[in-house]
């Protein structure tokens, strides 16, 4: 399931693990231990990105890109859509890696305001429990595999 990395030389470089890879984007100070543990126990390697610290600071929006995103099999974004820099990062993710499955944790109202960022089937409700998140990740990867076959 893991893609061949196209990220040699990109920064940051988080992936040392030969497992399916989940990039989990969570705001700083948000406790993601339960999600990380659930994803790891489901067989995924997990990297945790706190999102861009400031507008234009996300390496994904730079010329080279971000190895964490390029090497991921799926991205789970809990950064929401309220902050412009979070939307910019998500838009860049969609643009640079259009085939990468992305699950966005946001509520329905915000999702309706940004339909290009939250595509059909990629939204998860805020506060989703860890076991349910694992099921959503499995389902998204399964659908991606079917679509790519």
């Amino acid at each position: 399931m893991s893609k061949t990395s196209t990220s040699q030389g990109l920064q940051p470089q988080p992936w040392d693990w030969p497992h399916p890879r989940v990039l989990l984007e969570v705001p700083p100070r948000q406790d993601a231990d339960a999600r990380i543990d659930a994803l790891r126990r489901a067989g995924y390697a997990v990297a945790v990105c706190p999102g861009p610290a400031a507008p234009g600071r996300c390496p994904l929006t730079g010329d080279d890109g971000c190895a964490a995103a390029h090497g991921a099999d799926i991205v789970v974004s809990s950064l929401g859509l309220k902050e412009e820099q979070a939307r910019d990062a998500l838009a860049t993710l969609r643009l640079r890696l259009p085939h990468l499955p992305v699950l966005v944790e946001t509520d329905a109202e915000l999702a309706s305001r940004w339909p290009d960022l939250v595509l059909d089937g990629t939204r998860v409700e805020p506060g989703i429990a860890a076991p349910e998140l694992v099921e959503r990740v499995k389902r998204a990867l399964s659908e991606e595999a079917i679509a790519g076959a």
Partner: protein
Amino acid sequence: MRNPFGSEGRAVRFVGAVAALAAVVAGTDAFAPAAAVAAVSVLAVGALGALYVVGGRRPQRIPAAPAHAGGPAERRALLLIGRSPAAEYLSGLRDDVDRILVVSLVSSSPVHHWLSDIDPERAEAHKQMEEAVSRLRALGIDGSGVVGNDDPFTAVDDALRTFGGDEILVATQDPRLIDRLRDRYAIPVTRLTAHQPGAALTR
């Protein structure tokens, strides 16, 4: 041994720079007075030093961790130990850890590191590891051990690949190590405190 440049490519570029600057110094020596040769040599050494510092920077990372290893409910931990006797730290271990791999870190001086003369330090690390494993088994914990790479992060990477790990327990007195481990690994990193049974685990 740890590659201080982080990759072979950077090391090769550094060697190339050494050769180029040596050629410059030799060329200067052939056509310029001694003072100019000395000045060029100083500049060359400075340039190499700067190149080493820049080349030696490790790639930026965000915290990551491999998939869980072992049974679904099994909890594994890495126990990092240094020079301090690990037994002092083990009396208050939580009982929810099923298996522990002791990773004994090799503490070598910079001189020994550069000379690759770390056999005495590795022997000491092996002794500390054996004592820690014996202590764990005496406590009824399924423990095993390895002497790690002399770079602690490579040692942990190796251990996570081979053994797995749901938590990293740290029984060393290096205050910076905990923060650096938390910056790098997406699993809990817990400091063990010596001689405080019942309160031996602090976050």
